[in-house]
């Protein structure tokens, strides 16, 4: 009986010590099934949207540009679109630290988005509200820094 009691104390003790020693104390990581695709159809399927940073790798804390490419589902470039930009960190409940804007139509359905900045590491959303002759539609991209 005494032996069992000792075992119990020892097991609880070891479990507690292990919990202290090995606990991972990070904030919630981004969901593992997060869709990180840089090309996807818009929500209503009106556009096929691709995004890429204009100057290579995105660095935390640096103001940078993205290029958004718009096509119809059958692959034709969409010209004359207006794109509004929003976004933020879903796990932190805050928006983007800057107010990015579409500043140029580059032709062949390509548009420049200026003024994007990610001031923290983690899961960010970039949301685009697209308005063009084909109709209004939205698309959300996930990024993990």
């Amino acid at each position, binding site marked *: 009986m005494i032996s069992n009691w000792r075992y119990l104390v020892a097991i609880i003790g*070891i479990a507690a010590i292990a919990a202290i020693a090995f606990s991972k*104390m990070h904030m919630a990581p981004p969901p593992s099934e997060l869709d990180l695709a840089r090309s996807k159809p818009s929500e209503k399927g009106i556009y096929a949207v691709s995004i890429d940073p204009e100057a290579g790798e995105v660095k935390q804390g640096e*103001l940078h540009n993205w290029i958004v490419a718009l096509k119809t589902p059958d692959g034709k470039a969409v010209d004359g679109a207006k794109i509004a930009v929003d976004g933020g960190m879903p796990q932190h409940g805050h928006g983007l630290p800057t107010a*990015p804007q579409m500043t140029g139509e580059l032709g062949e359905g390509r548009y420049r988005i200026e003024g994007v900045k990610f001031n923290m*590491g983690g899961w960010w959303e970039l949301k685009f509200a697209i308005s063009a002759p084909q109709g209004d539609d939205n698309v959300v991209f996930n990024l993990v820094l």
Partner: protein
Amino acid sequence: MRRLLSSVSIAVIVAAGLLTACKPPELTEAEKKTVASLSLSALPPLPPDPTNKYADLPAAAAFGATLFFEQRMSIDGVVSCATCHQLDRQFQDDLPLAKAIGTTDRRTMPLADVARSPFLFWDGRRDSLWAQALTPLEEPREHGGNRTFSAHFIKAHLADRYERIFGPLPDLSALPANAGPLGNDAEKAAWAEMSEDQRQAVNRVFSNLGKAIAAFERSIVHEKTRFDRFADAVTVGKTPEGDAALSDEEIYGLRLFTGKANCIECHNGPRFTDDHFHNTGIPAVAGLPEDLGRETAVKQVQSDPFNCLGAFSDARPEACGELRFMVTSGPQLTRAYKTPSLRGAAGRPPYMHAGQIKRLEDVIDHYVRAPASPSGKSEVVPLSISERERAALVAFLKTISD
């Protein structure tokens, strides 16, 4: 006998467990990456300042150093930039509110690597180091000067050095001794009576003084700390030695900082700041006017004639992204203040934008309690940490101050 063996084996297991608890586990690869991201070694070279074509001119920096320590640029002849930005005190003054001719509403900020901040002051009401440096010169509680006073001073005492860098000074002989758009009523009236050409000529001289001071301030940088020596060893797979070997408590604090306590969310990168503005529920100071932080500052920086897009900036508009794409409205701006660097912070209480919190331990207590903001909404959520964890966080913060 069997029972004795069982007891012994349990004791061995418990002892091993205790040893594990005392000796923190090795840093994981992810943790090493985070540690490397915080090291001064990860800081890229100082980028050029497109708004200031004199920013990297040694003669301008030397002239700026003179101006930084020049007391005669103040209306009472005893205040210089160095009155509050003290050379031997991390270029700050240890006071809750800066004191020069009068007492201001804000804590003096330290200057190490200040040239890397996209927005200056606690609320970011200026968008370049030179535009910042001009502000105290004509603030009644700081230098208390005005634009023609500054120009006349340069003409009388430092004309040669000025002209070698910036070219000929304009003819100031017909201009009032004291005139400026932000001074007292007499100074404002005198400024209004000057011609547009005269005002612009004086503004040009005035802006060049800021550009020289900024050129000097670009040379004020962070020095490596114990943490950086630790991080640099860990990054290359070496065992940190000497003072680079952080104690178990300091490493525990580092893990809390980057993990459970999540300080790194805002205090990130080699300067331990995201250069952004946050409402963290810092209490208002009784007796001071209402302070809305970033909410007020965005309007001020937009209307500043010395901003990146203004006539005295050397930048093309394309280089003014921080100003052009600044968030200008929204509830998140109310009582939001800049994330300060934590480098050296352990050695410079009191803390926060008006020195509201006296000790580092109390800062941690503030983030644990996460009180509501006097106005706007605090981004901070309450944290549950033990006394041991608080002490470990303080211990870690000292490693980026030693």
